């Protein structure tokens, strides 16, 4: 029967399967998806803008304490984290490139390496946080760091934990998104003509890298 024949046809080619017909063409569908994602990334930037704003205020009030507190952070680990995230951004861009080139397994592997980079980032942060916990450099009301008994240092560490904490939450969410995308790539949801979800997930990961590019000099290199 014709209904059975129709049910079989669109199931495997992603360009057909994921095509929604209220868009005039696949290109317009892709452009709309990208615009939506850029809008979302704009809101993410404005989310972090609030914390950067608080940073600006307190740094201008407590410049000496800011410098002193920043020297107590582990800059070497910060550099390692920066390199890890930049490399993971590269592997993510490669993953999208491979999916666009019909190289499914290469794309999956590149995505998995990206997730591994995120995990390494979180582990390194964990070591930093543990060290700060042991010396008492904690945010807000829990601050009790004898080496820096200043309110300005307390505000620095509060903002440090809030900003890196929110950023690490985004890294974790990004890892979950990329894991789902890796599975979808593996089962063949993407090909040269349709790889939009992978592209959008990659944009999210690059935004996470972007935010760290600003966090690193502002927190570690005062």
């Amino acid at each position, binding site marked *: 029967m014709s209904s059975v024949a129709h049910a079989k046809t669109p199931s495997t080619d992603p360009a057909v399967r994921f095509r929604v017909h209220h868009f005039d063409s696949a*290109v317009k569908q*892709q452009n709309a998806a990208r615009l939506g994602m850029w809008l979302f990334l704009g809101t993410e930037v*404005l989310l972090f803008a609030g914390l950067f704003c608080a940073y*600006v205020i307190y740094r201008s*009030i407590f410049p000496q304490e800011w410098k002193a507190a920043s020297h107590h952070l582990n800059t070497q680990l910060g*550099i390692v984290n920066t390199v890890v995230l930049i490399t993971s951004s590269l592997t993510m861009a490669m993953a999208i490139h491979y999916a666009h080139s019909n190289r499914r397994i290469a794309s999956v592997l590149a995505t998995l390496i990206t997730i591994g980079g995120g995990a390494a980032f979180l582990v390194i942060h964990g070591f930093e946080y543990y060290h700060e916990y042991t010396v008492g450099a904690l945010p807000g009301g829990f601050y009790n760091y004898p080496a820096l008994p200043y309110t300005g240092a307390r505000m620095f560490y509060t903002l440090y934990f809030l900003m890196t904490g929110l950023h690490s939450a985004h890294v974790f969410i990004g890892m979950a998104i990329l894991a789902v995308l890796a599975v979808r790539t593996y089962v063949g949801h993407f090909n040269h003509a349709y790889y939009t979800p992978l592209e959008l997930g990659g944009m999210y990961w*690059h935004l996470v890298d*972007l935010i760290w590019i600003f966090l*690193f000099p502002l927190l570690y*290199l005062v």
Partner: protein
Amino acid sequence: MAQHTSEHSHGAGDGGHHETPSTSRYLIVFVLLLIFTVLTYVTAKMDLGRANLIIALAIATTKATLVVLFFMHLVDHGTACRLVFGVSTLFLVVLILGVLADVKTRFPAALPHGETVRPEHMMRPHHSEAPVKRPAFRVVSVEPTR
């Protein structure tokens, strides 16, 4: 709306079925990002006074621009996307500049500052003669430094 998609070739393809942008631009951007990272670390170690912050922000902005344009493909996406991201960044700058202008031009006593320790001559003798309990960490009288 921009009609072009990333199926236009920007360089030699790498043997895939369809024309795709070459991977060399990703590697070039990656190497540039690493160079800028080293640069920001090195310049931070030098003492340049106020220029330290400006240089650090300039390098960070350059790195961010590279990531946004090439890793996130803003060069390939349409004008609307560039407009969205540009306006978001513009409002971010407006927010920070506005707040900075406020804080930097405040009367010093209007700024929040740390707890103060009252000078000794203003402290009344404790009626039970027991020593005053010290706080967990030493608080310092702070005039907000400019």
